[in-house]
């Protein structure tokens, strides 16, 4: 059994997963802003963009904390995970508190986007991680359904 104060070797897989999700989120950002603008005008688009940026920063911050802690020790990972949860919730609260009275903020699109983006990116990432947990971001191979040759004399 490894001592809890020993560091883990190798790069942090959490950082790879978070980078993967951030890249997908960056692709989805203009689409999300467009959908927000379509349904709620300029304020909706701006709020959707802000919420998506918040989610991406939150995920990258979480992965960064875990990666940093894994170079210290296993016990530090536990501390970073639990402390990071409280800290990141506080940061999200502060980020929304700062902009709540601004003219471009629409709370309903912002709130819905926070949940949908977070869960959507996670489900998307899970689909790609499912092939091999050792290689995050690996796309699962699709099953080929080419027609089988029919044997002579059999129909």
């Amino acid at each position, binding site marked *: *059994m*490894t*001592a*809890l104060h020993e560091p*883990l070797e*190798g790069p*942090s*897989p*959490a950082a790879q*997963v*978070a980078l993967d999700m951030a890249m997908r989120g960056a692709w989805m950002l203009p689409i999300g802003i467009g959908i927000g603008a379509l349904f709620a005008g300029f304020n909706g688009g701006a709020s959707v963009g802000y919420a998506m940026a918040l989610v991406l920063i939150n*995920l990258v911050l*979480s*992965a960064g904390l*875990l990666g940093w802690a*894994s170079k210290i020790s*296993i*016990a530090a*990972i*536990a501390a970073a*995970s*639990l402390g990071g*949860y*409280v800290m*990141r*919730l506080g940061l*999200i*609260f502060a980020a*929304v508190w700062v902009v*709540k009275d601004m003219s471009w903020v629409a*709370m*309903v699109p*912002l*709130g*819905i986007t*926070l*949940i949908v983006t*977070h*869960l959507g990116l*996670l489900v998307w*990432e*899970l689909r790609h*991680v499912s092939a091999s*947990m*050792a290689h*995050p971001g690996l796309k699962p191979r699709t099953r080929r359904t080419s027609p089988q040759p029919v044997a002579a004399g059999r129909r």
Partner: protein
Amino acid sequence: MSVLANTAAQAIELAAEAGDADAAKATAGASSAGFAYGLAAIGPGIGIGYLVGQAVQAMARQPEAAGQVQTTMFLGIAFTEALALIGFVVFILLKFA
């Protein structure tokens, strides 16, 4: 918990007695929002604590599987955190919308 609930109920009653319906409504909304956010953060907190505890134990027992465990742990934390985010969204919709 009951002390908080009593305090919130007293604040709402005081506002209602003062004859200000808007103030009573705002007070009720604020206390409900606080309860929603606070209660919604408890469950994920317990969940993340349990998840991380088990993951740390797994990494300590099998360091060669630490990569897989970390990946699973990260995704588990993010999924559990979604519950707290839902509570937060309820909070901002009650308080600010």
